[in-house]
């Protein structure tokens, strides 16, 4: 065995896909099932629109290309849709801010088009009237995240990757020099010179098993799911304020409306962010706020029934950037976690960067901003 990947979420699955494709023999181990953590709670957003110029946007742009390639390799069940995103602004002030963001994004290679209020209604006929305008991001896409993760794992499996769900890693095996030799699990040992931490929100715990600090914290989000509807909402539509919420470091509750249809019919409504640990109770105030904001953006949804509400825990790192790459503190340990709410989108690029790093190939992007040891200085 060359590589043990800890975590069968979408990031672990993408790591398995790309490392096995590069010819390495791989095992994926997860204490739960496939897509059992944050992946299964995600909406499947593959976004460039919500990222400002910088390392995360570069990662997202690389991923956007890779997802497009994957959509041709993987079965159509992954429901890849290059549907595009529409960011709307309610006021002239927020429109001005949005336009400034878009200008910066364009320089970084993002396709972003200003949309007038009239054109907005053409693109999304059910949007509330009197919006100041918006911005169209044709590169934004969506997949069904759990299916996508499973199919990535299945593709790795066809190249011999071993999938071990329901098996928890309880220790990292190291040699006398402190280099990784594999993992100890609840069922035994898996030996390999490389261990990839793709444990998502629980990545900090895994890092701790290896004796290193990685401050991944859960940032809770709720999603409302409506009754099945015709394709009322064509793009991923969200309010300009969402970008500010995503990049805020506050522990307090933030909500901004994010609304999109799905091929199966239900409309998904997000997004809330709050740091409340792993609290799994339904928050009525959060759900009410999400509902109010969605109904304000799409009045037609007011009469629609919400069938389900669920939550997920985004793996949050204090600077909102994931940890990707080798850990200089423990030879053989690689990290691929802490993608916060963007893990589905950023998974393929992460997987490819990890595969290249393990292979000793020069990675497509500079890994320095994602250095896992960057929080040690704190």
């Amino acid at each position, binding site marked *: 065995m060359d590589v043990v990947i800890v975590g069968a979420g979408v990031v672990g699955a993408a790591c398995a896909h790309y490392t096995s494709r590069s010819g390495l023999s791989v095992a994926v181990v997860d204490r739960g099932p496939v897509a059992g953590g944050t992946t299964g709670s995600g909406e499947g957003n593959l976004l460039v629109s919500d990222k400002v110029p910088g390392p995360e946007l570069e990662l997202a742009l690389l991923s956007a290309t890779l997802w497009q390639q994957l959509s041709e390799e993987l079965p159509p069940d992954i429901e890849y849709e290059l549907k595009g995103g529409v960011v709307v602004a309610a006021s002239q002030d927020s429109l001005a801010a949005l336009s400034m963001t878009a200008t910066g994004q364009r320089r970084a290679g993002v396709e972003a088009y200003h949309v007038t209020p009239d054109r907005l209604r053409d693109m999304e006929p059910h949007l509330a009237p009197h919006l100041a305008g918006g911005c169209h991001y044709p590169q934004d896409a969506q997949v069904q995240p759990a299916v996508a993760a499973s199919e990535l794992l299945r593709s790795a499996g066809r190249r011999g990757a071993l999938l071990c769900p329901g098996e928890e890693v309880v220790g990292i095996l190291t040699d006398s020099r402190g280099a990784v030799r594999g993992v100890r699990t609840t069922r035994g040992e898996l030996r390999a010179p490389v261990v990839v931490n793709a444990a998502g929100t629980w990545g900090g715990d895994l890092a701790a098993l290896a004796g290193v600090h990685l401050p991944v914290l859960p940032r809770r989000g709720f999603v409302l799911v409506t*009754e099945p*509807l015709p394709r009322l909402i064509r793009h991923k539509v969200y309010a300009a304020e969402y970008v500010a919420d995503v990049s805020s470091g506050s522990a307090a509750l933030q909500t901004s409306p994010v609304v999109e249809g799905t091929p199966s*019919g239900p409309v998904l409504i997000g997004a809330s962010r709050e740091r409340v640990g792993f609290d799994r109770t339904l928050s009525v105030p959060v759900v009410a706020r999400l509902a109010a904001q969605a109904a304000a953006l799409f009045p*037609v949804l007011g009469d629609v029934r919400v069938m389900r509400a669920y939550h997920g825990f985004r793996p949050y790192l204090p600077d909102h950037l994931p940890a990707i790459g080798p850990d200089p503190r423990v030879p053989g340990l690689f990290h691929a976690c802490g993608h916060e709410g963007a893990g589905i989108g950023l998974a393929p690029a992460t997987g490819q960067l990890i595969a290249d790093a393990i292979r000793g190939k020069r990675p497509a992007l500079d890994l320095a901003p994602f250095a896992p040891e960057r929080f040690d200085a704190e």
Partner: protein
Amino acid sequence: MRRTRARTPAELVGSEPGPEFQLSFDGRPVPVLPGQTIAAALWSAGILSWRTTRVHGRPRGAFCGIGACYDCLATVNGRPNQRACLLPARPGDTITTQEGDGHAALDG
């Protein structure tokens, strides 16, 4: 003690209902006894399905009878996705076979 077997549920419980009224199902009149749900009125008329499914367009009607399974969804007076097994029928109600998600009107 042997009871004579009733021929109908109404006979069994000695039903003396109020005056009958009508609802319309896909344009045809269906008699209703006061207090009956829409599903009960349709069953009385021998109608067992009033919805077609989203994926395969198959007919469905009441299944669980207590509002838990949502199989009995019908379009009632233009409002889709009403549970026929719970909703009391009212004079003049117009029931139409619901197709798929029932929201075709929104799609336009």
